């Protein structure tokens, strides 16, 4: 008997969302299907009474306006009470430990924590110290995982391409530092994508990533040939400071998604980006704003996905 997955309770139901790694396919599909149900006929997102009386605490130890905002909108669309805590500016600077902070917030009747932290594993640590009725959603931890971003990418792909079984998907950029890439790889693999490529400079390719079942390319033109989906990653400016990359111009030349490079992919290929975009560094404006870009629908889809995760976690299991 293997050890129980830390995200599932003893009945095999989702208790926390920490990572897409090891999350069974049925759970992934249930989240995607649930997200689909939040759209009304006009493509808008519904307001529902589901989480009335439930308190969602957005616990952001690291800044991210967009992710925090979409979680907040998602919780409010489900009628939850939302509290935004920017921990950088408060208790941590006074020396309070992570678990003491969480214990205090639990005493304030928090039901759900949305956690963003620079340290990999922080959401998992919090999850281990909560009562059975409380839940953690990982909103990005270190280089480890960003499961809701991975889910919204899966969701966006499925809404356009309908199925995963015939797709060739390329992940392009700073894979080494990217928690988004890890979540994408685990999710796409679980859902049966037959060919998954990683396109990155050698200095930004994690060693041994082939073991996850991906093909590695250092030549973007080679890697984009005949792909159905291009998942761009954000190039974090701070990477330019070190010795990992020569310059942003050089990076753009080799790994920036330009219309001529995109033309090597299939004619109906779609382009996704988790934002915020660095135009002229990893992506050309003509691509970002072009007909193959699903970057803005991704943002709306992110609300539906986060609602789905909260709705699944918030019900039952009392």
């Amino acid at each position, binding site marked *: 008997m293997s050890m129980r997955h830390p995200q599932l309770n003893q009945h095999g139901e989702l208790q926390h969302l920490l990572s897409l790694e090891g999350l069974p396919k049925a759970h992934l599909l*249930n989240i995607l299907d649930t997200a689909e*149900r939040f759209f009304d006929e006009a493509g808008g997102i519904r307001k529902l009474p589901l989480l009335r009386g439930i308190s969602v605490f957005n616990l952001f130890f690291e800044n991210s306006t967009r992710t925090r905002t979409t979680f907040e909108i998602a919780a409010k669309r489900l009628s939850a009470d939302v509290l935004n805590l920017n921990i950088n500016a408060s208790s941590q600077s006074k020396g309070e430990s992570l678990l003491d902070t969480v214990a205090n917030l639990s005493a304030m009747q928090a039901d759900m924590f949305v956690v963003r932290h620079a340290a990999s594993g922080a959401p998992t640590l919090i999850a281990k110290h909560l009562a059975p009725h409380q839940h953690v959603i990982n909103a990005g931890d270190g280089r480890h995982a960003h499961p809701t971003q991975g889910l919204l990418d899966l969701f966006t792909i499925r809404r356009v391409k309908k199925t995963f079984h015939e797709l060739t998907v390329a992940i392009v950029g700073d894979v080494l530092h990217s928690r988004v890439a890890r979540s994408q790889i685990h999710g796409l693999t679980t859902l049966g994508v037959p060919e998954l490529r990683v396109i990155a400079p050698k200095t930004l390719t994690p060693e041994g990533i082939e073991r996850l079942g991906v093909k590695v390319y250092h030549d973007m033109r080679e890697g984009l040939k005949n792909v159905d989906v291009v998942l761009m990653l954000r190039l974090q400016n701070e990477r330019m400071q070190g010795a990992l990359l020569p310059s942003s111009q050089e990076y753009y030349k080799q790994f920036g998604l330009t219309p001529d490079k995109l033309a090597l992919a299939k004619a109906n290929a779609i382009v996704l980006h988790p934002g915020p975009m660095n135009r002229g560094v990893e992506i050309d404006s003509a691509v970002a704003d072009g007909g193959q870009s699903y970057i803005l629908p991704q943002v709306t889809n992110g609300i539906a996905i986060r609602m789905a995760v909260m709705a699944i976690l*918030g019900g039952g*299991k009392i």
Partner: protein
Amino acid sequence: MNATSTAPPSDLLPNAEQLYQTLLGQLKAGMTRHAHLVGIHSGGAWLAERLARDLAHQPQCGSVDVSFYRDDYKTAGLKNTRNKERSELPFAVEGAHIVLVDDVLNTGRSVRAAINELFDFGRPACIELAVLIDRGGRELPFAPNFCALDMMVQSDTALVLSRDTQGTFTLHTEVRPS
């Protein structure tokens, strides 16, 4: 779950097609001509869809998926729906006359959830209720305006409406998960 109950056996259950004709007849006689039909997923939605075709004045037809409005969400969780049921109301609820359709009326909690949902879309002028079977056991003060059959069923037994590929309705029983 999903095991067939021994009492009452499915072959002694009323004929769902005959019940449908009875309900259709009642609506032909009594349904306000400008009313819209709204079926509760899944059985009620099938019935409403077919009623909309069979009624001469061809009312507009919508459906509601009440799982986001159920009052047992906090204990039972969200129902896992792979069948992609969705609320679809292709008309303005505000000021509308609505006939809500369900297959089996029991506690009334689904009807409560459906009415709550409808009010999130607007303020209807009037809501009436049409059901195939009223099996009693009400926990909320609802009574159907149109009902093909009153029938007592043991509380541990669920009455389930099915629709085959030809669109034919049948009834069977299942043991209710306790």
